């Protein structure tokens, strides 16, 4: 009995330590954003890093005066939002076509899609850059949206989910007189909410933090997203960590809210599509 108790205690202690490791950066960021700028680095090594004696919102107001935060935020929302919405439509239709429709070359195409998954953006960034330059798309929203709409990973998630839906549902709809598109919209989509939620959240997360590509293809503040906004602080003397933390908090907050709102769907979607980790 006593032994069991000891095992439990040690498990909880290790879990607590692990949780601390993961939470510490976020806590430090939030606390740091609320401290006077001068104290952020000085107190970083002491207990005061997490228990400040003086709180202020000065850093937050600094963010708004030093850079056009609202512009960055709206840009990010527009870009990530568009990619999510259009991406859901495109990738779900593609996943459905791969999972359920018969067409010549389907398996070859699907193999190609799978292969695209392992090509990182960094590997094709330069040729892609030439391409969009030729198209005259630089410094626009489009250049930050279009290349990321079709997504091999999302297609695979949809594909796996649709494969698991009972085929009879579609056959019943066909006999009832629904065409392929109508079947997709009226029968498949309503029964695939979990996978739509999962793909939406994953895509949004991925795009919200996009840095390299926007840096390459944009030059002005007008169309740049949040990650480039935070980077602007490094080139905007004096270097104020409090402001950077405040910016960081405001950048992470929408994602946290989104996750909390859709948590139920997200967890179900992860279970249903069999993604792990």
């Amino acid at each position, binding site marked *: 009995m006593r032994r069991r108790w000891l095992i439990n205690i040690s498990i909880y202690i290790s879990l607590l330590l692990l949780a601390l490791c993961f939470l510490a950066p976020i806590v430090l960021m939030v606390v740091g954003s609320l401290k006077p700028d001068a104290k952020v680095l000085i107190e970083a090594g002491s207990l005061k890093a997490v228990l400040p004696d003086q709180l202020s919102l000065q850093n937050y107001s600094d963010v708004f005066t030093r850079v056009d935060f609202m512009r960055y935020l709206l840009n990010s929302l527009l870009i990530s939002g568009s990619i999510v919405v259009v991406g859901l439509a495109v990738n779900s239709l593609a996943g459905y076509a791969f999972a359920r429709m018969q067409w010549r070359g389907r398996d070859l195409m699907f193999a190609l899609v799978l292969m695209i998954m392992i090509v990182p953006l960094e590997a094709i960034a330069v040729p892609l850059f030439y391409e969009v330059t030729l198209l005259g798309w630089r410094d626009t929203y489009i250049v930050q949206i279009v290349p990321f709409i079709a997504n091999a990973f999302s297609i695979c998630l949809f594909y796996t989910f649709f494969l698991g839906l009972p085929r009879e*549902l579609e056959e019943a709809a066909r006999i*009832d007189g629904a065409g392929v598109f109508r079947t997709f919209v009226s029968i498949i989509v309503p029964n695939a909410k979990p996978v739509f939620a999962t793909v939406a959240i994953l895509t949004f997360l991925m795009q919200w933090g996009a840095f390299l590509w926007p840096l390459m293809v944009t030059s002005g503040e007008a169309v740049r997203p949040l990650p480039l906004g935070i980077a602007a602080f490094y080139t905007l003397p004096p270097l104020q960590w409090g402001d950077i933390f405040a910016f960081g908090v405001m950048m992470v907050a929408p994602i946290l809210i989104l996750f909390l709102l859709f948590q139920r769907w997200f967890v179900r979607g992860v279970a249903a599509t069999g993604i792990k980790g």
Partner: protein
Amino acid sequence: MAAVSYKNIGKSFDNGAPAVTDFNLDIKDGELMVLVGPSGCGKSTLLRILAGLETASQGEILIAGEVVNDKTAQQRNVAMVFQNYALYPHMTVRRNIEFPLKMMRLAKAEIKRRVDATAKLLELDMMLERKPKQLSGGQRQRVAMGRAMVREPAVFLMDEPLSNLDAKLRVQIRAEISALQRRMNTTTLYVTHDQVEAMTLGGRVAVINQGCLQQVADPQALYEQPANIFVAGFIGNPGMNVFKTELHSEHDQLTIRWGQQQLSLSLDVKRKEALQRYICKPIFAGLRPEAISCEDTQNVDATITVKVESIEALGHEYLLYFKSDVVAVDTDRFLSDGEITMRSIMVARLAGRVDAKAGEKIELGLMLKQLYFFDEGGMAVL
């Protein structure tokens, strides 16, 4: 309402193996036709070909005299009830039933009128606002029926609609389907693997095995005059005992060999004549379990000694499994691989109580007037 015809229908699987070969069947307008056969015999494929869910590799499908091979499922005006019902889980009962009508772009008032009428007929009117998962198996089954009926289709297709229900409910809904079909007088194709279900629905029955039509007839004719060994073994519960024997003639008296015994047959003139050319040749003989008795009644023409294997008491009757001097044929697999598979156990269906134990020897009476004969190819000899 419409007549349906399968004309020389063939269908192969992707790997080239035949699923259905040269299938011909005519279903009359308003008729209930049951397709029955063991799992994998091609009966569901035939139904799906008619529905337009699969295409035939060869042959023609006719609905109301019109070739429909190139028509879509909707254009064929057929409705189907699936084995797992395939109700749309996100829609209420009302929305499930009205879905096909919406696809037909009917007026709202007409849709409502038809849905309400169908729901009333199927006693679903109290649960129109529920979702399928809030319904019992039987209720779901009725919603699936409703969704098919509400369109007033030319042909109803039912793919094992009762197999997800428990035994008691199955009997009840089977009767309901049969009554409903007579009332609506819509041509219906009903697929099942359960021969009892096939026999009790009341329509003609088409027995299918390995993608080939074996026999079409009403249930009684299938039982009394099976066209071949497969039908003889498949229809009836348990099926017919078929065994290999030899026919002999002594002083104008036909006999068959049962182990060491020669059993005399008293047959009418017509059957005697039909059997003449099989004398001294191997032949298959079949005896229904009902034609074997443990009491010495006047119908019994011969007695044999058998070794009891097991006894199943069913309350009102007993099934006695026994081994005898003859070797029984596995009717399910007769000529399926080009050769005959044997099984050593035969079965008798006895009305009276049997006080024997496994391993004991007892005497059984055979009603040889009820003997069936099949030639070496398995076809019935009159």
